[in-house]
């Protein structure tokens, strides 16, 4: 261990400091253990056990998890995954196009304005966003009235409507994630390709996209996770008309369904964490890999 070497070499001051600095990190670790670990543990425990009200006995059961993967609950999980995948795909593509437009622009002002705006918009979601869209393209929204969208069959309170709203914070997120990668595409590479007679398409097919691939995939996964976890926007917007797992959990928790469903909510929470964990497990290595090109 390197620390024991340096202790031997560094004299007494290091030996005294070691344990004390360790103590300074303790409150953080204790706090996360208590306020994050215990709720998560309770959730996982509740998801796989059943407590008999009369006797108070607790036994292990896979019933809740099984029920969370059936009927309307499964439908909500599938709905969430579909919405997240669609919005991540569309948001990813549009984000790349916008980022490319900004990155290749010669105007420094445009560039910094666009990146600052992206940073701000990507952090924006939830209730105010939902209301801004209701006022714009909701039933009596300004644009709905002006363009008579209602007669065209437009509804904000639908799968399509949610997609349009989610893109509002997903596209800027993609711009933020992908702009450094696009910057990493050296103009020399394109020149090299051009002077060896490659067309624009060939450059992207054989140089651009392979270099960008990890960043693109990482961005997609990040967008997916963000859309998957979003709840407030959907709650303020559609209530229950679109099946989403976050809305189902909220329903079950606030007692809008039969009693005894709380454990199914816990099981759904566990399902969500598993999916989100999977997403992160894909994202982190990709991010590390894409960092290689950005020097």
């Amino acid at each position, binding site marked *: 261990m390197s620390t024991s070497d340096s202790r031997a070499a560094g004299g007494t001051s290091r030996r005294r400091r070691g344990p004390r600095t360790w103590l300074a990190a303790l409150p953080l670790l204790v706090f996360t253990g208590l306020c994050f670990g215990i709720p998560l543990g309770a959730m996982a425990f509740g998801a796989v056990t059943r407590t008999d009200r009369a006797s108070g006995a607790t036994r292990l059961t896979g019933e809740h998890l099984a029920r969370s993967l059936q009927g309307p609950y499964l439908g909500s999980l599938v709905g969430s995954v579909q919405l997240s995948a669609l919005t991540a795909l569309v948001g990813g593509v549009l984000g790349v196009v916008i980022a490319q437009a*900004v990155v290749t622009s010669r105007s420094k002002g445009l560039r910094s304005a*666009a990146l600052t705006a992206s*940073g701000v918009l990507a952090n924006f979601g939830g209730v105010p966003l939902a209301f801004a869209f209701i006022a714009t393209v909701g039933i009596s929204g300004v644009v709905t009235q002006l363009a008579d969208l209602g007669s065209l069959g437009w509804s904000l309170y639908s799968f399509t409507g949610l997609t349009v709203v989610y893109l509002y914070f997903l596209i800027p997120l993609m711009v933020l994630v992908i702009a450094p990668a696009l910057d990493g595409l050296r103009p020399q590479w394109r020149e090299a390709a051009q002077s060896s007679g490659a067309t624009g398409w060939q450059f992207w097919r054989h140089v651009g996209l392979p270099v960008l691939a990890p960043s693109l995939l990482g961005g997609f996964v990040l967008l997916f996770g963000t859309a998957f976890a979003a709840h407030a926007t959907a709650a303020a917007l559609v209530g229950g008309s679109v099946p989403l797992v976050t809305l189902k959990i909220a329903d079950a928790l606030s007692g809008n369904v039969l009693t005894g469903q709380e454990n199914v909510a816990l099981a759904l929470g566990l399902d969500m964490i598993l999916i989100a964990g999977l997403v992160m497990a894909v994202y982190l290595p990709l991010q590390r890999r894409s960092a290689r090109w950005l020097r």
Partner: protein
Amino acid sequence: MAAMNTPAPPARAVPPGELRADDRTDGPARGNSPVPVPAPASAPPARQGRGARRPGIWRGAVLALAGVYFLGPLLASFVFTVHVPGRGITFEAYGELLSADGFTESLLLSLGLAAATIALSLLLAVPALVAVRIGSPRLRPVVEVMCMLPLVVPPIALVTGITTVLRWGPEHLSRTPLYQTFIAVQNEKFPVVLVLAYTVLALPFVYRSLDAGMRAVDVPTLAEAARSCGASWPYVVLRVLLPNLRASLAGAAFLTLALVLGEFTIASLLGFRPFAVWIVSISGAQARMSVAVSILSLLITWLLLIALSRAGTAPATAAAAPATPSRKES
């Protein structure tokens, strides 16, 4: 807000100042670039001319469409709040806000929660991160994982766990002193349980902001220098390290403030009524006012975040200058 869309990297993940400014000229556009790029002599001029025009057009179209999509809803919502069909332009929705039932209470509650969350998260994270930098590098991965894990857990999943734990109070602990704690934590006036939950949600952002700040100022060297001048440990942290970390502390605080002001999921499911929950609760009866408040809260959050991104670029210059403790103290 940020909490709902959990893994969003904080706004400062890509501060404009850090992006490479040197080699980002597009191939075709390089002729007019101020950056001297060795242009290959073989490229025929005619082709360059054609290439330079096309990207200009598609870039303009893309940016214009993006502008419409991102500015449209904001303009439309503003029109929605001031234009009442049949009565013309009126600013009533904004004027009635201050006297609206619950507005002040919920706003004050949110601000109080934000202040407590910022204080708690910084008190927990700063000592831990300093310790990890200076004396216990082996703890570093542990601290990092602990701080970043909340990103993997959607807030709504965290809430299911919290409600389960809160139910233990009445069910199992009613004869122990712990029960009083459970009651106190859920006080309507100031729900401590929300502060605890928000601190968990804020930790990833606080960690990233502080970690980036500490990377820029070489904490061990500063601390060694101050120590060898005879400074005590509290003095080192309070008078030497923290002033150097001002920008990233401010960044962490701003992000946390924005997060708490916009948070809806946890508060509404636990039955409390801070700002975001209040907006939803009035939306049925007073649609115009709820949109007006949304616009205002957006503007406030954006100003905060823009201020943050300014603060985020400032330390680049501050950090570039050799930061000796003696100079910072004067």
